[in-house]
């Protein structure tokens, strides 16, 4: 029974306590949350929650059923396959000493990232992409010295 990564996207009532019900379900039943993203949709009464979780085949079946059972979960789908798009954004605070600045700029350019803050010895880089792309740029920047990082976790939609 191997655990695999799953992306779940759900529409929920935009009411106080709803996120807590979703998160509490994961912790209370021993499931894991790898990342979590929540915001209002175009309808202010509805929010979208995207959760990345690791679970076995029977585990993810139970997670989906349990989430569907929550009264405030309106619609739930497991996101996978070519019919879906998935993106993540990261802000990376990387040390940028003389002699490395050009190299960093080149990497950022290749990954179509943006420099959103420049200091005498650092850049803050904004980059979006799928999870692999984010991990790849992080690996390339690691030798320069990443001081801080903030990742949003995956958001996803069906085409």
């Amino acid at each position, binding site marked *: 029974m191997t655990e695999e990564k799953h992306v779940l996207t759900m529409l929920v009532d935009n009411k*106080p*306590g709803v996120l*807590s019900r979703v998160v509490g*379900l994961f912790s209370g039943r021993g499931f894991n949350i790898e990342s979590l993203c929540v915001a209002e949709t175009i309808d202010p009464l509805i929010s979208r929650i995207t959760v990345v979780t690791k679970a076995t085949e029977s585990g993810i079946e*139970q997670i989906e059923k349990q989430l*569907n*059972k929550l009264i405030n*979960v309106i*619609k739930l789908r497991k996101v996978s396959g070519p019919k879906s798009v998935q993106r993540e954004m990261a802000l990376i605070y990387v040390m940028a000493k003389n002699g490395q600045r050009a190299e960093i700029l080149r990497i950022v350019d290749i990954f179509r990232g943006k420099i959103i803050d420049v200091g005498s010895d650092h850049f803050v880089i904004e980059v979006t992409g799928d999870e692999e792309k984010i991990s790849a740029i992080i690996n390339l920047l690691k030798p320069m010295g990443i001081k801080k990082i903030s990742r949003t976790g995956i958001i996803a939609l069906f085409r």
Partner: protein
Amino acid sequence: MENKDNRILTGAQILMEILKSEGVDTIFGFPGGAVIDIYDELSKTDIRHILVRHEQGAVHAADGYSRASGRVGVCLVTSGPGATNTVTGIASAYMDSIPVVILTGQVPTHLIGNDAFQEVDIVGITRSCTKHNYLVTKAEDLAGTLKEAFYLARSGRPGPVLVDIPKDIAKTGVQFTMPEESNLKSYRPTYNPNTKQLQKIITLIEESEKPVIFAGGGVILSKGSKELTEFARKAKIPVTASLMGLGAFPGSDPLWLGMIGMHGTFRANMSVGNCDLLIAIGVRFDDRVTGKTDSFAPNAKIVHIDIDPTSIRKNIPVSVPVVGDCRIALDQLNQMIGEANLGNIIKKRQKWFNQISRWKTTNPLSYKQKEAIMPQYVIENLFNITKGKAIITTEVGQNQMWAAQYYHFDKPGHFITSGGLGCMGFGLPAAIGAQVACPGELVVDIAGDGSIQMNIQELATAVQYSLPVKVVILNNRYLGMVRQWQELFYDKRYSCTGMDHSPDFVKLAEAYGAVGLRATKPEEVVPVLRKGLNSDKTVIMDFQVEREENVYPMVPAGAPLTEMLLV
């Protein structure tokens, strides 16, 4: 002309309107500062209020009321400690899927979050043990929220729903319109089962030489006992049930195998272990039922009918999953089975029935008579004297298991026990609730000397409202079930399970204004039972039983169901 549905009402008045519209005639509760406005309004209605002595008792009583009547139980408590005291009762109702609406008072909205006097975040606390819960933040929302709470409690897989009502909302006047029936887009229970799946069940029945039906509390909750009985008889399939399912099928029927599980009968557990088809209806395959899951019904195709999709394939893989209402599914199966070709297979099943009879004869439920009163003997006589017609509630532990084994239930709603949570202190308040629901019935709480003391204060409630509940204490001066485990699995190290001091239950009963009786010798059992049961008062009967008697059969935790310790 006054438009009846366009009035300015306070929150408390709105609550009364909704309660009336839901047909609520009884509330179990305990007043306090945050609900004083609601209590004031309650006094102007003809809704009956039963004043419990502890809020846990209020929820258990509402639970017992619901199970005995098939209706939604309601309780009303104040904020803070009033609310926290309900948690155990709510968790028990949640595990057993009992429809209860819990109304809690809350501090005024402007004080919420300020650590105000008697403030707790009860919605946060009970989130994981309610089907759903609400904090009402606007008076305009109250009517709709309450209506929705009742709808959620009783529909689909039932369960407890809590509504937290701040004090200022109970006092605020708003325009009141009776809400329409709730229609939630995110909540659509599946009642009608998939016909193709049902057809697969019929095909499996036509092929099965060794079938077993396993019924659970879902059959009782869906009011499908009649349909289950018809189904089993038509298809000639023997029936076992979980603790929660006792009474779903007549205990006097020749097809009855007895209870399944850790303390199930030898023949029920062996039948499940050896069957080739297991039809599970309204169950959730609790670990106390399955034993080691890998060896549960190892040779069987398993069919699972339940209204809650999360129950299916949670613990046990199944061949044919059916999501739907148990009663509706059984009703449709009964129609289909009329057309099924069962003649030959039923002849082939004779070997199976012979095998089951042998299991019954070789290892029936039994115990050895000793000099002291045997607890099983008390229950057997209780069953005989009441002709199996009493409503039985239980506490939790050995008393509960002996009640399940030796009292045989022919009808649903007659065995009321805390199955999932296994909550000591359940039986007496639940008996009070059942007695309120069924004034003409004999209601008996089968208790142990340990668990009866967890909510003994409710004796005052029973006496105050002249509720003639009978409490049968199987008094072994131990926390018997834990002691049994210590004897069998911990080399008889009886760590902290001796109840070396208990009150004199006879004097205690008298102090509360109830009747107290005691039996210390086997020959006193029947006279004490007769005297106690014939009384029109609240009665405690203290049976001083054999101290170290064990419940058998017993499947040790984690062992396969067919590997039982026997007498």
